[in-house]
């Protein structure tokens, strides 16, 4: 019968229309600013710089190694390395970025900076309500704008942050063990240099 296909199709639309009043699987949209869908954990938007401790300037993990600047495909990161060293959150003197700018109007959220950073210093944010009427200044983020605490990182990407924290703690423990062993080896070597020269070698291993 001519028109049967159309009627079948209309029945389908009617089912969807009426179904949207009862089932969530046919009404999938939400009233955005009032109602929000939960954020997906792996989501990424623009990068931010992680800092440890309360002070963003002191705790910044970035040591200004310029790797991300070099690897960023559209070259939207610009860093100026500091001339001097300042103690970081653990008290170790480090270089720091005197200037760290990301032009987010150019950034394409590719996450390559995150992947290449050896110091877990740059991570992806999930904030997306970023519109501004200042096209140039408002979209060139300096390091103050980029700095976010590690707590914030843990909050937005809990699984990833836990893995990063664990691996940083492990690195630090290893480093401490190594420096302790080195110090011990040094002291034992000086103390027992005449009595037992072999023990110093063993400790160093």
């Amino acid at each position: 019968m001519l028109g049967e296909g159309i009627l079948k199709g209309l029945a389908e639309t009617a089912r969807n229309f009426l179904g949207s009043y009862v089932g969530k699987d046919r009404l999938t949209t939400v009233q955005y600013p009032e109602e929000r869908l939960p954020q997906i954990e792996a989501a990424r938007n623009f990068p931010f710089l992680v800092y440890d401790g309360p002070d963003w300037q002191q705790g910044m993990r970035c040591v200004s190694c310029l790797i991300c600047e070099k690897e960023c495909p559209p070259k939207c990161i610009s860093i100026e390395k500091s001339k001097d060293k300042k103690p970081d959150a653990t008290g170790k003197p480090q270089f720091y970025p005197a200037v760290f700018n990301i032009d987010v109007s150019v950034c394409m959220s590719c996450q390559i900076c995150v992947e290449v950073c050896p110091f877990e210093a740059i991570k992806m944010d999930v904030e997306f309500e970023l519109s501004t009427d200042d096209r140039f200044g408002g979209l060139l983020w300096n390091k103050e704008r980029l700095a976010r605490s590690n707590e914030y990182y843990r909050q937005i990407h809990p699984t990833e942050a836990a893995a990063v924290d664990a691996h940083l703690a492990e690195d630090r423990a290893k480093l401490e063990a190594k420096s302790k062993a080195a110090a011990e080896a040094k002291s034992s070597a000086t103390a027992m240099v005449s009595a037992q020269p072999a023990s110093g070698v063993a400790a160093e291993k």
Partner: protein
Amino acid sequence: MSTATEAVRLIPKPTDSHECQLLEVSMGPQHPSTHGVFRMDVALDGERVVKLKPVFGYLHRNHEKIAETESYLGSMPYTDRLDYMCSLTSNWAYALAVEKLAGIQVPERAEYLRVITAELTRLQNHASLIGFLLQDMGASGTPLMYAFREREKILDLFEALTGARMMCNYMRFGGCRVDMPAGWLQQAQKVVDAFPRFLDEYEQLFTENEILMARTQGVGVLSGELAVNAGITGPMLRASGVNYDIRKVDKYGIYERFAFRVPLGDHGDVYDRYMLRMLEMRESVKILQQALRDIPPGPIMDPKTKIRGFRPKAGEAYGRTESPKGELGFYLISDGSSNPYRYRVRPPSLVNLTVLEGMCLGQNVADVMAILGSVDIVMGEVDR
């Protein structure tokens, strides 16, 4: 009317008032159904198309030249932007070319992840393509919204896995960037299980619809011979009855492990192209069911491949995949440095567009939209 200069006019200047009754119309570039910025210079004799000249290049962004100055990894996020509906298959094609070039092995689990993401990409591409096709033919909103509702679920899966919905930047040379988060597999299984129901609904809606049949059957016929000669690939080629699917021909990745069939059309008209995509989605669901069932645990990256300072030895390689739109290939020449000496994309959308005039001649002007919609183009890939 076109503002084209004399040199590019399709119609000669009228000399005799009785002779030249053709009308030259410029369709696009801001036409709602040109799928981006694409222009067609059409000469009409009444309603009939007598000449058609596609004009593209509006979205050109120098992708290939930029890639020659980037590191190999640095081009990966740009491949997302070729076919922005299917970033994961573009990623795969590029990764495949580089892996060939450098002789990298991909671990088992990563291969499965690639198949799963690529077939999900095919599902969402075909579903939304059919939505767009019907939208072009005047079914405003409804089909497209239904398709987008399903696509949304797949995009949520992509976001949970890769962090982004469209610009996934997920595959790496020798594997994938991250493993699936907890619960992802179950969620994917749910989406895949529910998909055939959506396909049934979609078929209810259109397959026997008299208006659709009247508008698409016998329209825009492309013969198998012309399709082969013009280098057409993908669903377009198979709708013309040529059995050529790179997943079967090359068996790249691990495609030889899955049981699936390659649907073929026999008229090569718009309706066949529509129907073929419907059938292809069902086959993709089959592949997905098998892949989700069999995915083994294990590493997802080849441990020998470095992310930074990647320098394949000098040589050349061509890697190609069956992207949802056709054969997507990357041709790379390496001179041993950290960036490719030559980087070339073989975009299926562009090649499939080249027979547009052949399909449109003699058709009504309103059919041009349906024919263009059935080609499945993405301008990001056509213009690069």
